[in-house]
Structure formats: C-alpha cells, structure tokens
C-alpha cells in the first residue's frame, strides 16, 4: 500500500491556479489511472483532471469551489503497489549553478588586484590627496574599491580616531556586520511647517560612526558617585592665580583627565581595543576629549596624557577646544585616541550614557558637580558630588575590572589636595 498525492495540474501555459468546480469522486471510491476525478476551471480552460494512479480515494483536500495553486495537493489516493512508473516531475529550479557561481567568486583570494586602480579610484585619490598604497582594498583579490576610498574620505571628514592600520586589517578579517550608513531614507513623515535640514558630510560621518558603534559594540553601563569637595576647594584656591599666571582657565576637567589617565596606567585592560580574534591593549594612553560645536561633535586627542601635568592637560584642552571652535583642528590631532572622556557636566548633565568612540573599549562621562546633602561619618553634610558614568564594550571589558578602574578614579579624585596633587 502506498499513499500518493494528486496535485493541481497547470492547465494552460500562463496559468498559476485552478478552481475545483466539482469532484467526480468521493473518499472510498476506487479509481483507475486516467479516470477523471475532478472538473477544474482555470483562466484558460475548463477540464476534467484524470487520476495519475489506480487505487482508492482516501481524502479530498479541497472543497468544491476552492481555488488552489498549481502544484498543491488536491487529493490523496491509496494505491495497491508502489508507484514504480511514476516519477515526480523533477524540481527544475536546482540551485547548483548559483552555487557554482558563488564558488567561482570565492575561489580567487589574494592581492593580485591590489595595485590595479580603476579610473574612479584614481580620481578620488587625487581629488582627496590619498596615498593609495596605504589603503587596504576590500575588493576581490585585494582591489581597492571606490567605496573603500569613500569610506576613507568620510573618516577624514569626521575628526575622530580612525583605527590604526594594524587594527584595521584585523577588523577586515572578521565577518563584517552590515552597517547601514544612516537609518532608512524617507521613513520620517514631513509635515507642513517642518524644516528639512540637509545632512552635511560631517553629520553623515558622525551618524555612520555612532551607528556602527551602537550596532557592533555590546554596550554596558555603570556609574559611580564621587565626592569632589576636596577637588573643588583645591581648585578654587588656585584658579585666580593660575588664570593670571598662565592666561587660561584651570578647569575641573583637567583634574579628571589626569585622574583617569593615571588609572588607565594602572588598569591597561581598560585602555584597549577589540580586534576580532584578539584584544589589543594599547601602550600609549591617549585621551580623546569630546568637543562640541553648534553643529557637530569633534574628538581631539590629548596624547600621552599620563605623562602630562594637570597644567599641561589644561593647556591642551584649551588649545584643542579653540582649534575645534575656530575650525583649525587638523586630522592628525584627532587620531590615535585610546579612551574618551566626555565633559557632559559642562552643560549641566548629571547622568548620561555615552556611545563608545569606536574602536575604543570605553567612554567616561564626567557629569556636573553639584552640592548635595550626603551622609559623612553618620552626619549629614553638604558636599560637592559628581557622577562618573562609564560605557564599556562588553566584548573587551567586564564589570569587575571596570568597577576596580572606577573605584581607583574615585579614590584619586577624592584624595586630591594641595599636598598630593601637584599642578605643575
């Protein structure tokens, strides 16, 4: 006994479905091969459908009047013997050729195309002053594509850490997640009176980098509360004289950067980058600081911050911020950062979740210093408090090390005083 299926035949060259206008058999009926079992109506013809098998009708799969796609089962027939002579029409869609094409495409790896530049690539490299020998091509056999160059140009526009070549290479060996440049176009409705602001190149680059970081990096977040009363007192005692002497402000931010740089030295795990099959701990401690203008966000770098004095850091912060605001910042002044500190407190924030400056492993937000009543030695005291918020790449870092790192930053800041915190 074998169960066979009768399927809706294609009745007519362009026909895709058929309607059972009436059944000529019912379950239990015995039919011979080629006996009519149903009347079927299609756009082109009306016809009686013959059975492809001899046997007993087991089940009708469709009601009269029901329309079925070509190839759908219309009824089930139990036959006496196996269907030795019946072969299902072969599936002609076979995917072998596609496979073959894919194989052929994947077969050629190597770098033989590395120095073959298309006219489009040459034009872009000349217009943007890009040395093509420094670019890693993503095309077949290492060819530099137009898109590779466009990406490079975008990175230049956004004064932000571009990963060092070594890291970049590593990045490319891992399967790249699909990162959309921006969110899908045209999803937001525009109503009368709305203003449509064209997206500038810099804005696009920011968007792309933020999106990439947010989509690729599993962010985790943590915050510590720090008592900055000592720092406030200490800094207040110096600021007038400092300004007069040096010509620029001694900001709190410089103290925080110093404290963070010192802690990074002690916790090099935090000063590191994700590189696919490994984590790279950076030797240099280069602190990216976020500087906002009206329209954009730049991230210049204080290089070797751990080797600099608070005064030196304060000066660099001032100079870099001026350069950003006057548009004089150079791209090499925005490269090489290993950790970002963001002075969110400057605009009154007391808590925020930063997006990591890709490909760094963490970003620390220094919030606003506010006076709050706190319990000190079981007594209520008015203290200057500040929150430090850390976003971390959970691929690279875990809570434990970050907790220790933040505890160390807290400790340094709370201990700041004339005695143990030299400015020069």
């Amino acid at each position, binding site marked *: 006994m074998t169960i066979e299926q009768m399927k809706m035949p294609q009745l007519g060259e362009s026909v895709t479905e058929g309607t059972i206008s009436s059944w000529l058999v019912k379950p239990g009926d015995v039919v011979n091969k080629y006996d009519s079992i149903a009347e079927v109506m299609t756009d082109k013809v009306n016809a009686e459908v013959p059975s492809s098998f001899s046997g007993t009708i087991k089940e009708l799969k469709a009601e009269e009047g029901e329309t079925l796609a070509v190839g759908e089962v219309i009824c089930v027939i139990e036959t006496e013997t196996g269907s030795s002579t019946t072969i299902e029409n072969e599936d002609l869609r076979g995917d072998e050729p596609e496979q073959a094409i894919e194989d052929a495409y994947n077969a050629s790896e190597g770098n033989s195309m590395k120095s*073959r*530049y*298309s*006219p489009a690539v040459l034009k872009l490299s000349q217009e943007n002053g890009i040395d093509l020998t420094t670019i890693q091509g993503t095309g077949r056999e290492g060819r530099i594509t137009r898109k590779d160059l466009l990406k490079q140009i975008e990175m230049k526009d956004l004064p932000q850490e571009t990963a060092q070549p070594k890291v970049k290479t590593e990045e490319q060996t891992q399967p790249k997640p699909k990162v959309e440049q921006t969110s899908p176009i045209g999803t937001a409705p525009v109503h009368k009176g709305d203003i449509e602001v064209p997206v500038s190149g810099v804005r696009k680059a920011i968007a792309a980098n933020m999106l990439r970081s947010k989509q690729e990096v599993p962010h985790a977040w943590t915050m510590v509360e720090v008592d900055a009363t000592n720092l406030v007192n200490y800094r207040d005692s110096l600021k007038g004289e400092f300004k007069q002497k040096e010509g620029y402000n001694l900001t709190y931010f410089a103290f925080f950067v110093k404290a963070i740089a010192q802690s990074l030295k002690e916790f090099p795990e935090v000063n590191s980058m994700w590189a696919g099959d490994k984590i790279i701990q950076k030797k240099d401690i280069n602190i990216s600081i976020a500087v906002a203008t009206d329209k954009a966000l730049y991230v210049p770098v204080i290089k070797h911050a751990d080797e600099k004095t608070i005064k030196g850091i304060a000066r660099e912060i001032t100079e870099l911020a001026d350069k950003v605001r006057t548009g004089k910042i150079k791209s090499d002044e925005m490269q090489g950062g290993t950790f970002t500190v963001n002075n969110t407190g400057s605009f009154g924030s007391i808590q925020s979740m930063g997006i990591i400056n890709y490909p760094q492993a963490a970003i620390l937000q220094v919030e606003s210093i506010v006076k709050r009543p706190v319990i000190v030695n079981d007594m209520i005291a008015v203290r200057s408090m500040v929150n430090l918020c850390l976003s971390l790449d959970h691929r690279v870092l875990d809570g434990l090390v970050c907790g220790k790192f933040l505890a160390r930053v807290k400790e340094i800041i709370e201990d700041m005083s004339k005695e143990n915190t030299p400015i020069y």
Partner: protein
Amino acid sequence: MPVISYIDAVTMAIREEMERDSQVFVLGEDVGKKGGVFKATHGLYDQFGEHRVIDTPLAESAIAGVGVGAAMYGMRPIAEMQFADFIMPAINQIISEAAKVRYRSNNDWSCPMVIRAPYGGGVHGALYHSQSVEAIFANQPGLKIVMPSTPYDVKGLLKAAIRDDDPVLFFEHKRAYRLIKGEVPADDYVLPIGKADVKRQGEDITVITYGLCVHFALQAAEKLASDGISAHVLDLRTVYPLDKEAIVEAASKTGKVLLITEDTKEGSIIGEVAAIIAENCLFDLDAPIMRLAGPDIPAMPYAPTMEKYFMVNPDKVEKAMRELAEY
C-alpha cells in the same frame, strides 16, 4: 599576383566553389542571364547553366526559404538578396528557420547556406538602397555574419562561407565593389570566419571597424603617421559572432579605441564591441571608448548634401582619430 576588384573577387570565389563542388548553386533575382544587377554572378549562367544559376521569382522569402530547404537536403545554396534593404521579407526564414535548424533538431538537421547581399551607402541609393542591416541579425545565435573589406578577404571568406556547415550572411559593400581593388591569389584559399584581422600595426590609437570604413581608417592612419601618430587598425571581418580575443588585444594595445560603423549608432555592431572592451579592458583603457557612426535617422537620404552628411568618410575618420590621439 593579379590585382582585381572587390566584386570580381566575389565572382571568382563563387565560380571556383561551383567548379569544386556540384552541390553549390546560386539563386536569386536577376542572377542568371543578366549576371546580377551589380554583375556579381556575371558569366556563371553561361558556365554552369540555368539549373545551377537560378533566376527566381521576385520573392525574397522564397529565395531564402527555398535555399533553406535545399540546404537541409544537403545542397550548398548561395542565395542573393538584390539589396540588403530588401532582405526584410526573408527575415522569418533567416531568423526563425536558417538560424535555428541545427539547434532545434538537436544537431539532426543543418542549414549550410550563404545569403549574399550588397549593403552600404555613398552610391546615391537613398533610403532603400543604402542600408546597413547587420545589426538586425547580430543577436541571432546560429547565424554568422561576414562583412569583408578587401578583395583578398572577399575571396577567402566567401569560399569559407560556402564551405561552412551553418548559415552565413555575407554582406558586400556595394560602393567597394569597383572602388576597392587589391591583390588576390589565383589559387584556392580560405580565410577563417570569426577571426578579425589587423590591417595596420600601430602604437598610439586603435581603430576597430569593418567594411568600407576599414579603408577610410587606413587612409587616415597614413596621414596621421606623418604627424607622428601611429594608428592600429583592426578589421572585424566577421561581425557576428565577434572575435572577442582580437578585440581585447587590439584595445589593450593602445588603450585608446575608436569604433567606426557606417550603420546608425544606437544598437549597432560597435555597441557590442564597446561592451566587450568595457568588460575586459578597464585597466588598460587610457581614454573613453569613442564611437563614430551614422546619425540615428531611419536611413540615408537621397539628396547629395544629406547623403554626405550621413556617411562616414575619410575626413570624419581622420578628425575622430586625431581627437582620440590628442586625448
């Protein structure tokens, strides 16, 4: 080596093949007693008789269709269309039948026939005696299209076409018939169908063309040489299927390519040549691919001013070649 005209090379090739093989015969309008309106079959009627040089009724589809039948039987018919412009009624027989006989029968039947037709302008032939029709047939696998430029190529390629086991359209430039003369060996030789021929070696620019335009390019190349511009000239000879290897080689050699056809520009043979170059030579090109062709109007007008305006000529070719060389 005797110097003969382009049309005499046609006659010579047919005569030699008819002498060699009794299955070869000619059919068409006025091909017998008159010897053809251009005299391409001159003398054959007297030599081979009316049964092998057949004056047919005036009906192009029958000329082609009867030829297809005879070829399927095993004959080697040479059918003449009086003008390429008049091939249109026979298109069903050529495209639906001749081109597909072998394929549709899974190699059981074949259609070894030649259809000859004079094409091309510059002879005050107006709209219907001047056309280039090759592009109509140049996406029909199963057909071969030969368009020779010199008497030597005419003889060698026409003999090859007659001996070919598949249908061949053999388009002869009617202005070249008596304008172009050249050395042609008296003995038997065939040239390969499907192979282009370098007509001039050069280093600075490459010209790829066929038919009468080959001569325009060669003349211009001569002039440019005195200015220190060296032109490489490739004669396609077979325009379908194209000799891709030769095209890629010639284009890559100089990186600057001028494609010329007498046909109207859009959808012409040289568009396909440009596609082959674009697919294969991206990293060897030193200039955009340049095309020189007739304007996109239905056909060549009668008045001499407009005819001249339509036709590719040596001056236009020279100008284009110079422009490309200077790029």
